[in-house]
Every structure is written in structure tokens, then in C-alpha cells.
């Protein structure tokens, strides 16, 4: 496989002029992942971990093989540190709920940033209401990132957990996760990372990052929807209470006592997304075959090109200019609302996102109601960026801008 004709691996681009620049929202799926879902349902389907028949055993093995693939891919110490969830949102809710239950009390503080996606704010907000904890926000800087200094400023003796995004889904800013972990751990504070925008684009090394929790969204990583991953250091998974109760997460159930399953099953209640989990192994394989370094290199070149092209375009204003930047770029055009931009681009089969991208705090801080966002995946090319730019020019023409 090589990156220059990678579009061929994605059937959605077959015989289509589609320019898909909405991968930060959700990525397209390679044929191998689609085939795996089809094959599994067609020939191999069974629930996992319950029955002793051959189908069930094979399905269970496939299910666990994905766990090991993920463990290796993100360089976690143990496969027991990989928990399958409904999505990154559920992964963060799991931590907020169980950590909050066990360790937080009134007036304790949770430190997040102004860049956070709603999924790394709203779960903590619940604890405000239930437990009277406080949510503090580390401020964004003029580049649309959050510096380690701005995080340090907001840490005090009441800070009980720091929850930050790996990469901003609006500005593409990459936060220094390793340094944030070092800083937090020097003050005995655990760190949760919302890895939704980091995982598809950057090299992941949990032992190097040393964060306590890392949430992954599989559908943004060329994988199926309905699936996320929570990486958590084993000691946390052992100490924290279970999140949801049901089948599969128990050891023994008596009328007066229930004991819970060992890791990782303790956190996987009910019938899981078997087909999606089995197929996600193919997503990992797909990225591994390309090589994450190659992916990063390709996307960086493309993003530099996008920044250059859009900067030259009069009346396009880029939102933020972070030094360390991943695969998303947001912009506004004076005189055209982002939703009008997105609708007009759509007519040229250029798919972008417009709105607040689930980051109302960030947009409010900047005082803009909405932005337009182009985000990259491994299938994007320079031609895609050129098409984006010419569609923007068409927009300007319709709205009589120069």
C-alpha cells in the first residue's frame, strides 16, 4: 500500500469527485474494514465470552485479538488497560463518573481547557451538579492552543484531575501531553487525555505520554462507528468502581452480594459491539501498513499547503496559528456565514463542517458564533485543497466579495 493512491482503498471515492474534508468529524472507511464487518456477520457471527461452541470461541479470540492490537499500537503496558466503550464520549463519561464517585467531594476542582470538545466538559459538568465540584478552564493563547504555563496557572491544591484534549478539533493545536503529565504528576494529579483528534493522526505511546487515561474514537480512525477505547493505567482500573452493571462484568452474583469480573471485563457490561471491535483490528492494520510516520508526514505537508493556500486567499481568516498543528484548520470569511460557505461548497462536492464543532466555549472566548472547518484524513491530496480553495472563491463570487 502506498499513500499516493490510497484513495483507491476507500470505496466511497470510487468514481466520485468527492472532496472529503470532514475527517475530524468522522473518517471514511477502507474496504478492508467494511469487508471484515461483512465477513464477520456473514460467516463468523457469535456473541463473545459466553458460550463454549466453536463460533463463540472464535469470536472471542477475534475480539481479544483487537484488544492486543490496540495495546501494541498505543504501547500500553498491558492488554487489561484497554477497555472497549461505545465511543470516546462514553470513555470520558466512564472516568468522570467513577473517578467522581470515588475521589471527589464538594469544592474539589477539575481542570480542563477552553479548547475542549463538549464531550470533555459536559461529563465533568454533571459532577458540578451532583457533587458541587468546580470546573476550571485553562485559557487559550493567541495561537489557538493552550500552553503548559496556562495550565500550571490554574493548578492549585484543590485540583483533583486534569482533563485535556490531545489535539484541538478546531485549530488543530497539539498539546504537549508528556509535559502536562509530568507537571500534573509532580503535584500528584492524574491526567485524562481526550485523544479523539490525536489518535488518527499522531504516534501514540501511552508509556511515553504517561497520562492516566486516554480516550479514543474508533470511527475517526478509519474504523466502525459505535466504538471507542478507554486506555487507563491498570492501577486506576483496579481502584475505580465499575461503570455499568450487567452481564459479562460480574464474577459471582448472589442475592446479598455481587463480585465483579477481573480486568478488562469489569468495565465491559452487556453484549458489546462485537463486529465493530473485530473489524477495528483492520483499521489498526491499515494504519500500521502505511506507517504512522508516513501518515504524519503526508498530513503535515498537506496541512502546510492548506495554510499557505488559504492564507493567500483574501478575506479568508484562519482561526489560530498553533506552532504544533495537526490535521484541522478552521476559518471564517468576512461577510459570509460559515453555514452558507458549507452549503455552497457542498454543491461542488466539497464536504466541510460549519458551526461551533461542539466547542462553544472556544467560540465564545473568541467572540465568533461559528467557523468553517476543513479537516484532513490520509486520503486527502493537494488537489483536494485546490478544489477547496476554488470553491471558496466561488462562494466569494456569489456573495460579491473580492
Amino acid at each position, binding site marked *: 500500500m502506498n499513500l499516493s493512491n490510497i484513495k483507491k482503498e476507500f470505496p466511497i471515492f470510487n468514481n466520485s469527485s468527492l472532496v472529503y474534508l470532514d475527517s475530524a468529524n468522522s473518517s471514511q472507511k477502507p474496504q478492508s474494514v467494511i469487508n471484515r464487518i461483512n465477513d464477520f456477520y456473514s460467516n463468523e457471527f457469535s456473541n463473545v465470552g459466553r458460550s463454549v461452541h466453536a463460533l463463540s470461541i472464535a469470536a472471542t479470540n477475534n475480539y481479544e485479538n483487537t484488544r492486543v492490537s490496540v495495546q501494541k499500537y498505543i504501547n500500553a503496558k498491558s492488554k487489561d488497560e484497554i477497555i472497549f466503550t461505545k465511543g470516546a464520549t462514553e470513555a470520558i463519561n466512564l472516568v468522570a463518573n467513577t473517578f467522581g464517585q470515588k475521589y471527589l467531594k464538594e469544592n474539589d476542582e477539575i481542570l480542563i481547557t477552553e479548547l475542549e470538545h463538549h464531550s470533555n466538559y459536559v461529563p465533568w459538568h454533571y459532577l458540578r451538579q451532583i457533587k458541587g465540584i468546580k470546573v476550571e478552564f485553562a485559557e487559550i493563547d493567541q495561537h489557538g492552543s493552550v500552553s503548559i504555563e496556562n495550565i500550571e496557572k490554574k493548578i492549585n491544591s484543590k485540583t483533583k484531575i486534569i482533563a485535556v484534549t490531545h489535539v484541538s478539533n478546531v485549530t488543530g493545536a497539539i498539546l504537549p501531553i508528556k509535559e502536562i503529565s509530568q507537571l500534573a504528576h509532580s503535584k500528584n494529579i492524574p491526567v485524562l487525555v481526550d485523544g479523539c483528534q490525536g489518535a488518527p493522526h499522531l504516534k501514540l505511546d501511552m508509556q511515553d505520554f504517561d497520562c492516566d487515561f486516554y480516550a479514543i474514537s474508533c470511527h475517526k480512525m478509519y474504523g466502525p462507528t459505535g466504538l471507542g477505547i478507554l486506555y487507563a493505567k491498570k492501577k486506576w482500573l483496579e481502584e475505580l468502581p465499575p461503570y455499568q452493571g450487567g452481564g459479562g462484568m460480574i464474577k459471582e452474583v448472589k442475592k446479598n452480594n455481587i463480585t465483579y469480573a477481573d480486568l478488562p471485563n469489569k468495565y465491559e457490561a452487556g453484549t458489546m459491539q462485537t463486529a465493530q471491535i473485530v473489524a477495528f483490528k483492520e483499521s489498526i492494520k491499515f494504519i500500521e501498513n502505511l506507517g504512522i510516520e508516513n501518515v504524519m508526514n503526508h498530513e503535515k505537508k498537506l496541512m502546510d499547503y492548506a495554510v499557505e493556500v488559504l492564507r493567500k486567499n483574501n478575506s479568508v481568516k484562519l482561526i489560530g496559528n498553533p506552532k504544533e498543528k495537526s490535521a484541522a484548520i478552521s476559518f471564517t470569511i468576512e461577510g459570509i*456565514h460559515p*453555514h452558507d460557505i458549507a452549503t455552497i461548497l457542498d454543491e461542488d462536492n466539497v464536504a466541510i463542517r*460549519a*458551526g*461551533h464543532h461542539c466547542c462553544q466555549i472556544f467560540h465564545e472566548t473568541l467572540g465568533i*458564533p*461559528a467557523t468553517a472547518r476543513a479537516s484532513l484524513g490520509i486520503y486527502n491530496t493537494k488537489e483536494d485543497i485546490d478544489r477547496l480553495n476554488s470553491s471558496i472563491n466561488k462562494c466569494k463570487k*456569489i*456573495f460579491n466579495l473580492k
Partner: protein
Amino acid sequence: MNTKELYQEIILEHGKNPRNLRKTENFNKDAKGHNPLCGDIVHIYLKLNEKKKLEDISFEGSGCAISMASASIMTDLVKGKEENEVKEIINDFLGMIKINPELKSKNLKDDEKTKLMCLSGVKQYPMRVKCATLSWHTLISAIDNKKEEINTEKFD
């Protein structure tokens, strides 16, 4: 789909230079509307006289071309009409945007109907219908004196 149908000259013109974009002095009714998905906001002010005739209507707000044009055209059309006529026009407009092929209201002249039909292009863009209907829902709220802000996520 064709954006030319959506972004007709009249829409672009009203979007750029909205009529009645101001605040009515001595207004006696008002309501706010918000489309959280787009960030569109509108605040409508009414001045009804003792015969329930709409002496003045104005709005403040910001949003996409569709939402601004819709508010602009709406305020232009309903000004000077009686409250019950206005309500009938709103229902007719919302019906047209949702399902009806044309406007039926007897309270609208043919040229007024033609103007409003310029907004019918949004029917092909389900995500954009809320942009066109925000100000109309907000106007109902103002007439009915509802205190709660209109939120496009709360109706279909």
C-alpha cells in the same frame, strides 16, 4: 441540488442589507430566538396598536444569509397587517417550508407570495430549514407573549 435556487439574488440582497434591522422604540411585545447549531440569534420587537394592528416590527440579530434574509422579508411583509392575519401568514409560510408546494394565504398579495417563495429553496436542504424558520417561530412567540427563548432544537 442547486445553490442558485437557494441563494437567489433577492436572498443575497436581503441577507446583506436586511430591512428593519433595528430596535422599535416603545415596542410592546418582543421575543428572542436562537439556533444553537449555527449560532444564529434573533430578537424581534413588535408594536401592536389597540386594534391589534402591527404598527411596527423590527429585529436585531446575526446569522447566515438565509436566516437574515428570512427575517428581513418576514418583517417587511407582516408590517401593517393585523395580528390574526400575521398568524395566518406565519402558519402558511411554515406549512410551505415543511410540506406544501405553495402558499395559500388570502392575506398575501401575489407579489408578496413570490417574494416569500424565494425562501422555498431551503426545502432541499433539511439542515438549513431551521435557518429560514427561526425568525418566524420567534415572531409567534412574541405575539403570544411567551417568555421562553425560542430554540430551534426544540421544534421540528
